[in-house]
């Protein structure tokens, strides 16, 4: 049922919804005092959300197909990259070594 304006309907509505989500609590907590439990919980947002974004991109070989094994090159590459990130705290080194590991492991199989 995608009409001629289908794309633009999606673009404008999703763009607006995304903007409202992004603005939501920035606007609310500018006027209302933040509850103490919320303030305490916010510290965990980066760790929890970033992990939830990274893991599916690494452990699934295709959507829905879990490939949790050392034969999955993406897991080997992600572990190598995590080690680099841990010891160097350098994002460029992390991405470079992660990609290099991925290519080497893919090439070896």
């Amino acid at each position, binding site marked *: 049922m995608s009409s001629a304006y289908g794309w633009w*309907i*999606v673009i404008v509505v999703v763009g607006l919804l995304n903007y409202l989500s*992004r603005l939501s609590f920035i606007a609310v907590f500018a006027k209302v005092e933040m509850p103490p439990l919320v303030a305490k919980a916010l510290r965990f947002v980066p760790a929890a959300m970033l*992990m939830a974004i990274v893991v599916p991109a690494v452990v699934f070989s295709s959507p829905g197909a879990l490939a949790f094994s050392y034969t999955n090159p993406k897991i080997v590459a992600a572990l190598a990259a995590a080690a680099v990130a841990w010891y160097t705290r350098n994002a460029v080194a992390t991405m470079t070594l992660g990609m290099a590991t991925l290519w080497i492991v893919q090439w070896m199989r």
Partner: protein
Amino acid sequence: MAPSLIGLLPFGLVCGVGAQSAGASPGEALGMSALIFSGAAQILACQLMAAKAPLTVTILTCFVIGLRFLMYSAAMAPYMKPLPERWRHAVAFLLTDQAFAAAVRRFRDSGDTRNGASYALGTGVLLWATWQVSCTVGYWVGNVIPGAWSLEFVVPLCFLALLVPALEDGPTRVAALAAGIAVVALDSLPMRLSLICAGLVGIAAGLIAEARQRGG
């Protein structure tokens, strides 16, 4: 900052290729990257539009994947409070995973809100501009990059580089571990609800771990 930009390039290329192969016009592709400004939502929108899914399903799925912005918004709120309203709206429009991770760390390191806020705004504008360029390049020439290069894997690596410094103590590590397990366990949930649910599970686990640490 610069690393986020580098990570954004292949991500934008992938999004541009997606828009092109899903049959979006150049204007629609640009509208998507300029207004939606979220790689995950753009890729989903392209997949669903290419599959001729109903527009309501496409919109709802993209909205659900964007629910994480609610959490980012809450986490940014304390730092945004002293700012003029116009600034808050601008930072909100430009809020992305990368901008959030970079800004929160910056705010925590420098207590100076004014300085932190201009950093957030500057980062956002730079990321937005880079995003338009890389999506457009992807739309026009992205399909010449061989798929065997797996260039899209730079995206999780970029997030990994942002994640590791966030694992600052026991409770944050518990939060990340719980979120990582939950996102796989909940993968079958419709409309990518697994992402936001795993985030909430991780936050709850972090709070519990912190309470236990303090208790004993």
